């Protein structure tokens, strides 16, 4: 079972457990070890050192996981790395979430946070090194005690043996902790792996999550806590002018209502969640809408269309040839032209946003949260509450999904919780709860995108000219990560998957930003969530114009001698082969293929659909091939492919957030209908064997799902769907 551990909690627990050895990394990135018990010479658990692995006196090994668990499998994955190098018995390893601390940075970001499918990729060496260092120290201590060479000692299932001597780790914790960890501990050769790559290693969170025992931030209750919901402006940018508590006072359990200090809403405090929700309904607020966004979706669409028609602001491909390539594409004897549109999407994780802020003795704060970005949340709460950062602990819980939503560069819901905490006087713990209505109306959507492409096919049956213009609201501009992603005005996330396509295409790409006061955010697979669709539907259209088979046409635009493109071709061929590409299908069925590289991972998918007698579409099967380098946990990889495919299909089928005079029209799930079990196809995942370094799997399964479906529907019906969602554009699902 996974426990949450904050830094002080950990240190305190040491006394109770006796001597504990910890191995981890210090601020300079070097391996360090320490023995943490009162009066011990090595109790140097200073601010600069936090554990990645701890071994208690009874031999219990706990892996401290620096990436939160939103379902993507980090508690299983990172634990696998340590257990492999330490030769632990899988069922006996414990897992704890790391506290918020700079030693737990994501090596891909330089700050503590999870996202971008980076957890395994950035942890692979680090956690193996920590495990290998701990094992090496224990072995050396045992060798010394037993008077044998370290090489004469074997470790299996957490037990050290040499000749007739055997002992658990606990026996040598004291001695091992006095040793200096090897600077570069010897890692296992891949041929010796028993856990990494094991087809089915039980998930660490399965038992807790099937018995109701897993604790989410939504489940936290601390002493002296009030519940708070917030009445927000129905329009983005509305500012609170005044409010009347009126009938809320008669709601049993109502405590108080206060304007948030930033006038973004009214905090409604009560002694239970329900009382707060109920009282909020009675509160009447007046909003100053003078700076609010009052547009509707039709107006936004017109603005997108106008921008699509205008000269692009940015020449992304930087060859100064946009007009020329576009003219060549249009003028080709065989050509394809299409406009694409992608709506706003909400993430709608099952657990709505929630956060508890609890004052502690001594003027500190404890933040209870399914915290995805401690690097932002921690300083943000410190800045708002004026509590020094070192007196703030973030306690991380299981998160009920995220899909990007909890990784918010503004830490939006934490800011609300902190403001609500202050507005009530800063003495009582507050639990901020969002309802589903708050979630769907709360912004931070996947931006709208519009694309226009003109493609000319040459005499050789290959693409001779590809001109594309994109209109997108930038996710990164104005945010804390702008400098990493925005170059020469181009937000890479607006064009990723197009500008860096692995296909060999003579492409000219233009981009125009769309500006809006509505907050937008990354949504599972970020820009790829729409660029995968555009590129792969276009490749299908181009293949048809060229009179080629879609698989053969794609392969003709890949240079397989290049490693990267070879891997793209590899998954394409694997998916095609496993799906029986090219074999006959009965009337009323269709097959479509799509592939996309994102976050360093290559995925191809084949969708198979059938039509009923009324022409409604059923998605029968998705065959998926994935190359994510070394497959650390194959079953977690399969699960992530299944999940990302389902998440992607549901969105392209029927999801959109629309506005009417600035107000979101989707109130709750009935108006933002999630994918249901009856929609879910059979999914067959194949993992490409590989010894390359592992890349992420949380997002890359998504981009090919939508276009594979669209291409299959085209094969079955002859309808090209370039505007989403499909149900708003002439497609019925059975």
């Amino acid at each position: 079972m996974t426990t949450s551990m904050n830094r002080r909690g950990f240190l305190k627990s040491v006394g109770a457990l006796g001597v504990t050895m910890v191995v981890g990394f210090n601020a300079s990135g070097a391996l360090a070890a320490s023995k943490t018990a009162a009066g011990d010479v090595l109790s140097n658990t200073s601010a600069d050192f936090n554990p990645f692995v701890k071994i208690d006196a009874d031999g219990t090994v706990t892996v401290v996981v620096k990436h939160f668990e939103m379902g993507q499998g980090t508690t299983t994955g990172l634990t696998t790395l340590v257990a492999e190098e330490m030769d632990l018995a899988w069922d006996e390893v414990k897992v704890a979430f790391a506290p918020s601390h700079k030693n737990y940075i994501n090596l891909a970001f330089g700050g503590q946070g999870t996202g971008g499918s980076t957890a395994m990729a950035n942890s692979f060496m680090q956690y193996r090194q920590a495990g290998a260092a701990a094992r090496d120290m224990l072995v050396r201590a045992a060798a010394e005690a037993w008077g044998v060479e370290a090489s004469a000692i074997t470790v299996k299932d957490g037990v050290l043996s040499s000749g007739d001597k055997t002992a658990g780790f606990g026996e040598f914790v004291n001695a091992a902790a006095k040793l200096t960890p090897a600077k570069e501990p010897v890692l296992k050769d891949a041929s010796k792996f028993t856990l990494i790559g094991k087809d089915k290693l039980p998930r660490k969170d399965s038992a807790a999550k099937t018995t109701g025992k897993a604790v989410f931030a939504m489940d936290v209750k601390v002493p002296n806590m009030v519940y708070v919901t917030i009445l927000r402006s129905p329009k983005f940018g509305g500012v609170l002018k005044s409010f009347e508590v009126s009938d809320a006072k008669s709601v049993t359990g109502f405590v108080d209502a206060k304007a948030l200090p930033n006038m973004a809403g009214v905090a409604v405090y009560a002694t239970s969640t329900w009382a707060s929700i109920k009282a909020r309904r009675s509160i009447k607020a007046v909003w100053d809408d003078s700076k609010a966004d009052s547009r509707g979706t039709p107006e936004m669409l017109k603005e997108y269309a106008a921008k699509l028609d205008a000269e692009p602001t940015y020449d992304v491909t930087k060859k100064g040839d946009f007009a020329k390539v576009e003219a060549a594409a249009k003028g080709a004897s065989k050509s394809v032209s299409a406009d694409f549109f992608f709506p706003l999407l909400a993430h709608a994780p099952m657990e709505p946003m929630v956060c508890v802020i609890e004052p502690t003795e001594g003027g500190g704060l404890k933040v209870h949260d399914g915290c995805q970005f401690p690097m932002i949340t921690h300083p943000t709460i410190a800045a708002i509450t004026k509590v020094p950062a070192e007196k703030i602990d973030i306690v991380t819980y299981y998160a009920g999904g995220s899909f990007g939503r909890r990784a918010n560069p503004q830490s939006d819901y934490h800011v609300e919780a902190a403001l609500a905490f202050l507005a009530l006087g800063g003495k009582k713990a507050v639990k901020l709860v969002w309802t589903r209505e708050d979630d769907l109306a709360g912004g931070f959507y996947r931006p709208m995108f519009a694309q226009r492409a003109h493609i000319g096919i040459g005499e050789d049956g290959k693409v001779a000219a590809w001109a594309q213009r994109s209109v997108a609201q930038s996710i990164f501009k104005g945010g804390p990560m702008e400098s990493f992603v925005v170059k020469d005005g181009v937000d890479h996330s607006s064009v990723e998957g197009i500008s860096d396509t692995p296909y060999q295409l003579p492409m000219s790409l233009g981009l125009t930003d769309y500006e809006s006061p509505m907050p937008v955010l990354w949504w599972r697979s970020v820009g790829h969530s729409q660029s995968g669709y555009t590129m792969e539907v276009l490749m299908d259209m181009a293949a048809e114009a060229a009179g080629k088979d879609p698989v053969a046409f794609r392969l003709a635009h890949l240079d397989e001698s290049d490693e990267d493109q070879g891997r793209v071709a590899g998954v394409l061929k694997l998916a095609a082969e496993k799906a029986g590409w090219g074999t006959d299908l009965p009337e009323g069925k269709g097959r479509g293929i799509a592939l996309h590289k994102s976050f360093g991972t290559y995925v191809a998918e084949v969708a198979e659909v059938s039509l009923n007698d009324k022409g409604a579409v059923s998605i029968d099967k998705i065959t998926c091939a994935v190359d994510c380098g070394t497959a650390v946990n194959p079953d977690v990889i399969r699960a992530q492919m299944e999940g990302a495919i389902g998440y992607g299909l549901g969105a392209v089928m029927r999801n959109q957030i629309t506005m009417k005079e600035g107000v979101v029209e989707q109130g709750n799930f009935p108006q933002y209908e999630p994918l249901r079990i009856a929609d879910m196809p059979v999914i067959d995942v194949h993992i490409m064997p590989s010894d390359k370094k592992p890349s992420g799997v949380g997002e890359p399964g998504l981009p090919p799902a939508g276009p594979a479906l669209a291409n299959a529907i085209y094969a079955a019906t002859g309808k090209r769907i370039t505007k989403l969602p499909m149900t708003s554009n002439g497609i019925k699902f059975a």
Partner: protein
Amino acid sequence: MSIQLKINGETRQVEADGDTPLLWVIRDELELTGTKFGCGVASCGACTVHLNGKPQRSCILPVSAIGESEVTTIESATTPQAKAVQAAWQELDVVQCGYCQSGQIMSAIGLLSDNAKPTDNEIDAFMNGNACRCATYHRIRAAIHRASEILEA
């Protein structure tokens, strides 16, 4: 008002307005947090509990309407069907984020209690009100079949 509730084999006294949804009494008052809040409009099934052994959405059920009915939450799911479902869920590692899974499991137990060997279509029809944003549906289907096998054995 003071309300008597038969829950998980015990009789509990709670203070709540009669219109309070059973979900919030279970979670905030009785501190049985395995039952989840997902939508509040009976549209996602995360709040599924059993009322006299039948799955019900607790988020729209006023506590005053429960009367003598026996409420069972995930914490007290101990029937052979419950054990088979949980074992199958663990064997196939169905869960991802896990937030909806108490509700999925309570629904699946309800299904298997009525129908020991459901087909894919019967599973889809019965489970369609339980949303999972992680889309673990493919494994949910497989796990219900597996639980059915376990029960048969």
